[in-house]
């Protein structure tokens, strides 16, 4: 049995909070898949994968946290927009609280380590 020392890896952390990040983006305004990816990257999550976002959207939709509607466009493909419903907003609120508590704990830990 081997143990590996694992460095904090941005993509690993992202996996845990991608749901929350997607919900937060959609809470701001409804978006289609590629728009969500772009907005997440603009917000600073540059490593976010296209497939991860697409898969997360589909899963949240299946779980009943999102509404969706198709917007036809003349020049490009049809776009499927996603938005939060009540379930999604509730999930966002509770996940946000969990995240806030968690990140505060981590901040404290790191401060103590530095002192």
């Amino acid at each position, binding site marked *: 049995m081997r143990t590996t020392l694992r460095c904090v890896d941005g993509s690993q952390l992202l*996996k845990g909070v991608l749901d929350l990040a997607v919900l937060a983006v959609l809470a701001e305004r409804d978006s289609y898949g590629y728009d969500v990816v772009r907005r997440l990257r603009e917000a600073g999550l540059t490593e976010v*994968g296209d497939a991860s976002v697409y*898969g997360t959207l589909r899963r949240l939709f299946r779980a009943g946290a999102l509404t969706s509607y198709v917007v036809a466009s003349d020049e490009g493909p049809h776009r499927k927009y996603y938005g939060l419903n009540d379930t999604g907003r509730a999930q966002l609120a509770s996940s946000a609280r969990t995240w806030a508590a968690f990140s505060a704990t981590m901040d404290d830990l790191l401060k103590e380590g530095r002192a």
Partner: protein
Amino acid sequence: MITPDRYAQAVRDALADLPARDREELLEDLDDHLAEVAAESDAPLEERLGPPEAYAAELRAAYGDRTVAMGKKGRSLRTRLAASRDVLSRLPVYRHAEEFAPELRPAWWVLRGYVLALLLSALSGTRHILPGSPAEWVVVAAFVVVSVWLGRTAREGRPPRAVRAGIAAINALVAIVAMVVVFTAGDWNPRRDDLFYESARDAPVTQRVEMVPSGSLGGDVHNIFPYSKDGRLLEGVRLYDQEGRPITLDLEASDYRIKPVCFGEPPRTNEFPLPLVSVYSLDGDECLPSGLNVPDGVAPTAPPAVPPVEPPAQQPSPGTSPSVSPSGSPSASGSPSPSSSASASPSPSPSRTR
């Protein structure tokens, strides 16, 4: 350059193992999505998204751990076994045993055949460890040969799953039978009555005490008055059973207890007649001078011991034992004849409350 359609098809193929409904739900608007991505830039899709297989894997992971987890669940028992084996194999003892065990295999094959043959003969009625007749020896030899052959072929190539399962079942059966035989083998040792008797002679009062429940002799027997053939009350008669264990009476249920001895050893509980005193008697705290078991005061408490005396008085006439010719006369001399004691006894029965 790969088109969005072909890329999407490759992703679909990579996810072909998903349940149809899941796959449909997940890939519903993949084509539109990929077209959007492709429209964004002139760089080929593969460059921007990676190979379709990697994209599919990422989708699968993001869409839900359900499909991944199901695959893991099927493996979990095996993985857990492997993990515990990893832990064990760090122990030197286990490693040595693991290296040594394969060398014992042929012995196991022989034992397996042997036990199976004997099990078969046991089912047909004869139960023993060694084959009794030449025919049984032949059967045993045949089983051993088959078992060894089976073991060798199983080691050479991998037999089909069903055969392996059957062999495993037989192995388990044989192991259980062998253990049962080993644990019950002790019953076949010679009886040890003689040993018990020897030790009992050395120390007459041992821990092993035969309790005679007072009911088992009929009525409530709480004392025994041994009389000789000539009608003489015997004193200090120590009774033992066939294995040398002292015979005592269970006085719990009676209203009597053994009068304590003043000095020295406690009174023997198998020396009859017992020096009993009623638990209600006022002078119960009195003790016996040691060495004298039956004082005059106690003998009367004996319940009507008349029956055993009558036979000796009449016995001389039947010729069962010619040696007791001078009967009758000595009994009259001085010893307390049972008949007189019976008359003197104030019959303890009324005092009983239970």
